[in-house]
């Protein structure tokens, strides 16, 4: 825990570092393009973040890439470049983002909420709060899948923290008047909040974070008050504070307000993480996307250059035979190589007819070229006009280079299009593709583990803030596979497992996954199938296998009845008791099996002795 004096001292220190960079309340880069180095590596990690944003955020022009122009590039050409700039690398970022999001495919992970007393606090309970009631995002899963995954790719050193969406306040009468105090009788709405690496100006993991907010406080600046004062949000393992600059701008004085005491004994804020790196024995992170940024920067640069080259050279020029300008002005002065001279007055001006070229066009108003028949001895009609187009070899070279860099970036990120030219060998073998897939899994797995680790921490912090001791943590099974499997993929896998003669428990596990994919959105159906898979041990056997086992008497008749009529029995049980599927699973299984036994007992015995049994008895076997 950090003391308030230490907080204030630290904020002053940070503000002193920021002061030389401040212009009218904004922190701007100096002439060397640097920001205040709040800690060693700050500028580097902010640069990394912006380097990734160039490829991930629509509408952004990467000035840092283009600020060093070609020596001969004019302002007009640069403006053209800016106006026609296209973010060619956005799809690659999107593909990478979608690949990481595979971890969230419903068949790859599982969360099991624990029965607890949280409903007694707010009448809805923890599960409903995190699945439907989180402010801004609706559900925690939605935040993790759709928001945090992207933030993590872009900003590995950014942070996410959990605090109440609003601090409930109440008026309290004091000796001096009415004060606003934190109302601890209100149920809080804990919500995840993100702050970028730029805002995270001082930190020690698991102890404290100093977040420099974008908003400013009013401070005295000269004779007036201006919104130039810095505001910090400080998180430690006991509380969250707001530290606001007050008084005169130049004095860098701060006031501290304790906004919320969470008493979690740990900071409810964590860095988004990525690939670990050490600097002076301090741990930092790099986004895995960063490794491809150099290639992608080249793609952007070369694409822009290609665009410019096409503008300059890709279009054919018309060259045609002209005719000597025969302009004569009203004073009788002739055009002489584009200049009309008045020798008397020693004046001259550009010929308005040929515009100073000395040659006039042979095109008539219809755009047809007219050649004087008397000139045809010296001028061939076919040679009178021609089109010249520079060679496109260089353009093709540039285009190839761009494609190569894109492919290289995709390879680095282990993202391939199924029909792309990414494959270095045109006829890649199944083994090669399997190796590629394993490499991709190895690349995704650490990121996925980090995301789910954050999911767990955020979820638990939310539960503890809102419900205190009445909250019991959930079970979260991290993804082990990153396939995006459809129902037909699972059916194919089930068939292959059976044909390969794999042990029944392997076949069972694939069938369970198939059912979870099939019914994940249908709660009632999912419960019914969970019950059936637990009650029916023959669930994965084919009818032929069951008939064989029946004839060998290795299964009971009621088991076969349960297997063929399970759905009907479940429906009957629900009709008898609408809350049947909400009972303990063991009770459900018992009732379902009892139903099957009752039915089986009512059936006539039609067991036929097999030839094998008969002959076995004859030989005494």
């Amino acid at each position: 825990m950090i003391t308030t004096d230490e907080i204030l001292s630290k904020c002053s220190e940070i503000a002193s570092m920021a002061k030389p960079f401040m212009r009218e309340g904004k922190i701007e880069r100096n002439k060397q393009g640097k920001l205040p180095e709040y800690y060693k590596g700050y500028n580097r990690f902010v640069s990394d973040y912006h380097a990734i944003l160039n490829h991930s955020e629509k509408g952004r022009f990467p000035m840092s890439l283009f600020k060093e122009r070609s020596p001969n590039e004019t302002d007009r050409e640069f403006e053209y470049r800016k106006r026609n700039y296209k973010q060619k690398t956005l799809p690659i970022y999107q593909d990478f983002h979608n690949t990481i999001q595979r971890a969230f495919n419903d068949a790859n992970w599982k969360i099991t909420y624990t029965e607890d007393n949280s409903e007694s606090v707010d009448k809805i309970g923890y599960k409903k709060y995190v699945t439907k009631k989180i402010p801004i995002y609706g559900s925690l899963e939605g935040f993790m899948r759709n928001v945090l995954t992207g933030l993590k790719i872009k900003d590995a050193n950014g942070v996410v923290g959990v605090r109440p969406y609003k601090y409930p306040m109440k008026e309290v009468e004091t000796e001096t008047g009415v004060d606003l105090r934190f109302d601890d009788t209100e149920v809080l709405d804990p919500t995840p909040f993100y702050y970028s690496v730029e805002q995270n100006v001082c930190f020690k993991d698991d102890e404290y974070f100093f977040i420099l907010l974008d908003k400013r406080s009013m401070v005295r600046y000269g004779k007036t008050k201006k919104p130039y004062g810095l505001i910090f949000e400080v998180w430690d393992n006991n509380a969250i504070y707001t530290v606001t600059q007050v008084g005169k701008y130049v004095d860098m004085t701060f006031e501290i307000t304790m906004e919320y005491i969470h008493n979690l004994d740990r900071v409810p804020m964590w860095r988004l993480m990525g690939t670990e790196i050490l600097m002076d024995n301090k741990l930092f992170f790099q986004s895995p996307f960063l490794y491809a940024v150099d290639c992608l920067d080249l793609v952007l640069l070369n694409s822009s250059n290609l665009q410019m080259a096409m503008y300059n050279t890709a279009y054919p020029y018309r060259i045609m035979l002209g005719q000597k300008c025969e302009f004569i002005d009203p004073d009788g002065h002739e055009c002489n190589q584009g200049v009309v001279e008045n020798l008397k007055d020693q004046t001259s001006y550009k010929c308005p007819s040929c515009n100073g070229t000395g040659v006039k066009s042979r095109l008539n108003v219809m755009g047809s070229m007219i050649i004087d028949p008397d000139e045809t001895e010296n001028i061939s009609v076919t040679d009178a006009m021609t089109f010249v187009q520079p060679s496109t070899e260089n353009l093709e070279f540039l285009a190839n280079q761009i494609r190569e860099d894109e492919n290289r970036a995709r390879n680095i990120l282990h993202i391939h299009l199924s029909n792309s030219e990414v494959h270095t060998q045109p006829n890649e073998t199944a083994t090669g593709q399997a190796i590629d897939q394993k490499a991709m899994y190895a690349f995704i797995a650490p990121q996925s583990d980090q995301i789910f680790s954050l999911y767990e921490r955020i979820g638990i912090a939310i539960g503890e803030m809102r419900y205190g001791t009445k909250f019991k943590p959930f079970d979260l099974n991290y993804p082990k596979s990153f396939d995006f499997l459809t129902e037909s993929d699972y059916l194919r896998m089930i068939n292959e497992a059976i044909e390969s003669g794999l042990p029944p428990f392997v076949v069972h596990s694939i069938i369970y996954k198939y059912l979870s994919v099939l019914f994940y959105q249908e709660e009632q159906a999912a419960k019914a199938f969970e019950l059936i898979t637990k009650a029916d041990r023959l669930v994965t056997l084919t009818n032929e296998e069951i008939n064989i086992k029946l004839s060998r008497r290795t299964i009971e008749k009621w088991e076969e009845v349960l297997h063929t009529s399970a759905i009907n029995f479940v429906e009957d049980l629900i009709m008898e008791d609408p809350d049947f599927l909400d009972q303990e699973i063991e009770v459900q299984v018992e009732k379902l099996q009892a139903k099957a036994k009752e039915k089986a007992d009512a059936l006539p015995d039609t067991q036929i002795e097999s030839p094998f049994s008969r002959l076995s008895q004859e030989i005494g076997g």
Partner: protein
Amino acid sequence: MADKFHYIRQYVDDKYKAIESSVSSLSGFAKSYQANVFSEVISLINTLDVVGGNLIPSQRNFNTIEEILERLQLLLNGSEYEQGVRFFLQDLDKLNVLTTEFLARSIDNFSVTDNMAALYRNTKTNALNLLIGDESIHQALYRPISEQIQQSISSGASLRDLTGSLRTVLEGLPDQQGILERYVGQISYDAMATGDRAFGKQAADDLGLNWFRYSGGLITTSRPFCRERDGKFFHRSEIEKWPNLDWAGKYKGVNSSTIYVWVGGYRCQHDLMPVSEGIVPKTDLQRIAT
């Protein structure tokens, strides 16, 4: 020498004649049965839903496959094939008696041990299971039928084509036996031949016999491996090194234990007959001694 060991040769000849006869008889029953199966299956597939002569992937059609399999299971009960298997088991008993009598003549103080009796019971049960056990029949006969029908329904094949395919599968072609007949031929021969050899090997183990005579005679198609060994005596230690050699027709995966059962390989008509050391020629005894 020929007179002295003629009875061995006679025994092996009688044994393989009996095996061939029994296998041929069982194959005949299988052939007759598979023809009945074919008739039954055809009568049922003619009730399948078709459009323009082509099968359609309807639920009713897929359900009919289950019905066909149930009918075939009923058909097997009391069938001629069941009777054929019964006769085959009786032939196994007769062969066992023949072998027992031979061993009694060859080995002093011979008697059937508990291990030998248990081994023989096991051989019979295994043969029964392979020939008419539920799973074996399912794999050998029902599954190919159901797969053929299922594929035809799924692909919308014509009923005529399906009938033709099933006829080929079940009744075979002029140069190819039907599926059950082929299966039965292989299984029954191996069950008899290898089962009997295993019985002899068990006798050798139980009675502490280390010498064997490679017996069976030669025919034009005898393997070089068998030609080199026929009529000769070998010690256990020599025999158990043969799996390290390579020869045409060698049984895949044969090892030092199973060499006694598979001998020259598939359909080999030779046996390694256990003999008392007393009848082994001195030259052979000396070979091992050195």
